[in-house]
């Protein structure tokens, strides 16, 4: 691998490597080799990127083509598929998804902030046990809860109700949200709250005026993750809400896929794009807000 220059080779001195010692490696060739390497690696990663984008290109292609099929073709840039998708119920389904996502996010965020603040700042009996339980619940698959929740909901008459479906969806996100928010609030310095308490502010005021503004990034992340989770909900609504008027987007797309015998690729692609847009927009907003928190950044420290 060429001359390895180590501290040992520097004569009798124990100083570091001096510039003169590396003179025997032709400077130009080293730089050129690294530059060429970089371009080869560029090429490799671009190939991977192309492999990833191809299915998405098909989706765009099919959504804007007349008589779209599973093959790729030149799109005519029509909006007919989008109209067909709306005619097939995309508008209503997306509205239902909006309801489920907004209500469940609201419930989950409020509930989690209250619990996370208390677990972070106050003395709570059995706090340690509670935190372990919350941590374990984050890993509990919904598949286990599906049948019991279905039976319970039917007994309570809570099935076929968008509101109670939202409650169930909120519950699935609460353990992770509590864990995320508690860890976040732990990092917030307590001096502000203590100062406010000395001034005579009560618990609610401290929470509302001080803790929540300071914890906004964490709250934002928890809310967005809950929203995205509830937006794509499929299994839970499938099981506990049989009313076709309450069908959310994911189920709507699935039903459209299996309807009418032949799969209508054009309208379905449009439907899929319409359904995906809000989530994509949310993701873009969140990366802006968090200064690239989710972004594939690197190299620069901090």
């Amino acid at each position, binding site marked *: 691998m060429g001359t390895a220059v180590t501290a040992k080779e520097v004569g009798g001195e124990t100083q570091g490597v001096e510039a003169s010692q590396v003179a025997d490696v032709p400077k130009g060739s080293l730089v050129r080799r690294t530059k060429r390497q970089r371009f080869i690696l560029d090429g490799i990663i671009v190939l991977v990127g192309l492999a990833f984008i191809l299915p998405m290109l098909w989706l765009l292609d099919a959504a804007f083509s007349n008589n779209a099929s599973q093959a790729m073709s030149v799109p005519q840039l029509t909006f007919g598929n989008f109209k067909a998708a709306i005619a097939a119920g995309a508008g209503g389904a997306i509205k239902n998804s909006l309801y489920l996502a907004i209500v469940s996010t609201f419930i989950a965020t409020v509930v989690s902030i209250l619990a996370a603040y208390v677990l972070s700042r106050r003395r709570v009996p059995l706090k340690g046990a509670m935190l372990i339980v919350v941590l374990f619940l984050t890993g509990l698959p919904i598949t286990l809860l599906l049948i019991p929740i279905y039976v319970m909901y039917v007994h309570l008459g809570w099935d076929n109700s968008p509101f109670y479906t939202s409650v169930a969806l909120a519950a699935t996100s609460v353990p992770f949200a509590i864990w995320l928010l508690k860890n976040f609030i732990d990092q917030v310095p307590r001096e502000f709250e203590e100062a406010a308490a000395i001034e005579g502010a009560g618990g609610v005021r401290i929470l509302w005026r001080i803790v929540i503004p300071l914890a906004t990034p964490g709250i934002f992340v928890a809310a967005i993750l809950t929203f995205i989770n509830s937006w794509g909900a499929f299994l839970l609504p499938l099981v506990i809400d049989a009313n076709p008027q309450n069908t959310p987007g994911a189920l709507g797309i699935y039903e459209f896929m299996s309807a009418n015998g032949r799969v209508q690729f054009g309208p379905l692609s449009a439907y899929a794009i319409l359904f995906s847009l809000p989530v994509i927009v949310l993701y873009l907003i969140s990366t802006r807000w968090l200064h690239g928190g989710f*972004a594939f950044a690197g190299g620069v420290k901090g």
Partner: protein
Amino acid sequence: MTALAETVLAEPQDRPKDRPSRRNDRERVRPSTFLWLSPATALLVGLFLIPTGYAIYLGFTNMELLGPYAQHFNFTGMANFNRMVHDPVFWTSVKLTLIFVIGSGIIAQTVLGLALALLGQRVHVTVRASVGAIVILAWVLPEIAVAFIWYAFSQAGGTLSDLVGKSGTDLLSTVPLLIVCVANTWRGTAFSMLILSAGLRSVPEEVDEAAQLEGASYWRRLFRVTLPIMRPTIMVNMLLITIGTISDFTLIYAMTQGGPGTETAILPVYMYIQAFTFNALGYGSAIALALVLIGALLSIVYIRQLRPELKRAQ
């Protein structure tokens, strides 16, 4: 005895009334604490803990969706589990689940995510940002959209079939498990890429440079220095992938409904079919319990790998 000693040593009923009988050195529990905890407690107890207990109970019954056993079901002891052990479809399902989780989740997503993270370190910034955005976009798409895209992609005449050179074949019918695994990897790689690239950034440069000065080649440095330092990150990543993938329902159900036949019937899908298509809620619950058990066993493996790091952190 001094007045103070008298006060402290006196029985509670003898103590003067102006001295409080509770401790002042520990923070007191405020009543509002319980109020603020109550919504979360209600949700978690009502929609997690109680259903978990109920699921365990149901696994030992013969409750059904409709018919005679819907209202008046019986406790049947180990009957469901006996049936499970002798059910060939169940064992197929377990095998498929393991292939799906370990193959397309643990192995494929970690390797691909690591490759992207490593490559990302050494390419031009714009290239890295664009490819990163594409990979993450695949992750952000709703699962049903992914299912539809890959359904179309692998149909006869679809783009994947064309690329592979078998235009006429419906890949989803001929190699269904492979297709759903590819779709799942496509969807999930971004997660590993993000976590592992964060882990890579936390490897101190000095260690890598020292190895370079010693004359170690790239691959040697990778396997002997970088990856061992990243071990906790890799283990946590695998744990999270497992937890997320093992209960995945939508992707496979929307693409194949577990078929053709039972070729892609991973445990969540099989549970759904048994419970809601064949009406066997009790048996379905038993299958769900088996799923949780498998997930727990896999998680224990990773947590044990993490134990030396956790001990050191304490």
